[in-house]
């Protein structure tokens, strides 16, 4: 399968934070959800792909070319939504259309205004007078109106109500009807990612913890609940991480290493992320993590 994005051992050092050997890929025809807590390195990774930060090491390829060597035409094939709105807020939609015609070689005015109408965005009102949700919709409308083959979306649904989020997810499903398209999407709203994504890449402390197929994750991991003492009875490596609380102990476990007799619960992406991240940090619950 062709990779639209391929990142190998990406490094970026800041004063108080580093990305370390970040490696993952976004194959063609696939939606990759990029998860991690605030400050884990999601935005820095996305900015590195888009050429907004200069990496200190590693390799980033987009459409099979080094990211730094992408032409304007190549970059025009990337639709980006960058967290906060990154459009001229003093302009209305008609102005934005007028400007984007000269920014993107394949700008589609008809599609832009069709999306604006779908999202009920007024054409004559300045973007600065829009609500946060409406601004996000403008950003997405722009990203989808210039013939992008790859969408890179940093928190595109943040600040949106469930109905608006659903509308956006629907648009992203439509985008993925073309098998040559791909999406890399980061979001804190894990339920959105669970609906949309084929793969999940999880970053923590500037390092990729895993990149797995979403369905494999739910086959691989499960939640076990019981007593702290009972944890010791399982085979080594079965317990990925556990939390000890007032009313018992729960653990993220590997299904295939657990005895068949043990009742296990489905582990959602949010559960998996939580168990990996909270190790050793809990205040209410005593948390201990023993990574496999």
């Amino acid at each position, binding site marked *: 399968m062709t990779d639209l994005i391929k990142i190998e051992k990406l490094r970026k050092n800041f004063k108080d934070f580093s990305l370390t050997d970040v490696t993952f890929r976004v194959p063609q025809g696939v939606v990759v959800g990029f998860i991690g807590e605030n400050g884990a390195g999601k935005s820095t990774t996305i*900015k590195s792909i888009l*050429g907004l930060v200069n990496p200190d090491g590693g390799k980033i390829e987009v459409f099979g070319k080094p990211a730094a060597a992408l032409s304007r035409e190549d970059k025009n094939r990337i639709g*980006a939504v960058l967290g906060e709105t*990154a459009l*001229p*807020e*003093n302009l209305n939609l008609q102005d934005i259309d007028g400007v*984007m015609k000269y*920014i993107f070689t394949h700008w589609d005015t008809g599609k832009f205004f069709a999306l604006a109408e779908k999202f009920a965005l007024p054409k004559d009102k300045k973007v600065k007078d829009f609500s946060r949700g409406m601004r996000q919709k403008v950003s997405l409308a722009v990203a989808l109106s210039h013939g992008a083959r790859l969408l890179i979306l940093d928190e595109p649904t943040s600040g949106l109500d469930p109905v608006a989020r659903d509308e956006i997810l629907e648009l992203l499903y439509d985008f993925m009807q073309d098998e040559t398209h791909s999406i890399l999407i980061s979001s804190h709203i894990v339920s959105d990612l669970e609906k949309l994504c084929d793969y999940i890449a999880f970053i923590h402390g500037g390092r990729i913890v895993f990149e797995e197929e979403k369905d494999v994750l739910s086959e691989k991991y499960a939640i076990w609940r019981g007593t702290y003492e009972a944890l010791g009875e399982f085979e080594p490596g079965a317990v990925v991480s556990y939390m000890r609380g007032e009313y018992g102990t729960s653990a993220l476990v590997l299904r295939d290493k657990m005895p068949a007799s043990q009742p296990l619960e489905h582990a959602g992406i949010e559960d998996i992320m939580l168990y990996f991240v909270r190790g050793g940090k809990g205040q209410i619950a005593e948390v201990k993590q023993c990574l496999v």
Partner: protein
Amino acid sequence: MFGLILKDIKNVRGQMLYYLVVLVVFTVVAIVSDNIYYYVGAIVFFLVALPVSAMAYDEKDNWDKFALASGMSRKQLVVARYLFSLLFYVPLWAISFIFLAVPGDLAAMETLAIIFFYGGMGFFTADVLLPLVFKMGVEKARITFIVMIVLVVAVGAGLAFLFNLETGNAVLYVSVAVFALGAICFPVSMKVSENIYKRKDF
């Protein structure tokens, strides 16, 4: 590139109307008082105020992130801002030669020297200020902007004093030299800004 400049024009068009009114007032005052300093001083101010305003909007809107992610190069973003500053300055400066045709005290060698001198001062202001804005951002560079404007006024006062001492062609030659130097430094300043901007992380 055109899209970047068009976006700047659309962004600051509200202010441009305000500046136009100010410019008309200053032009009238310059003609009535036979004192071109009002006009040339105003256009030097506009030369930097307009691009700095446009850059302030861009900073607030995170526009550079979007533009870079969309295929604009860092060089294009820098060059577009320099061109945007010239877009209004050059025509307004060229218009200042019309003052030479106004009957009265303005139709003098002194007016010609002031036009060239302030033309150069305008370039120098942009040459110094724009790299600083690229380096520090609009807010931090604002102090420099104010200092530069005060400096231009002070140098202008010095020039007026020179005219009282020296009535020959020497002041005109100096003024043309200041203009030429300011204009030559413009692409140098742009190159410095490009180098600053190349290393910037967003």
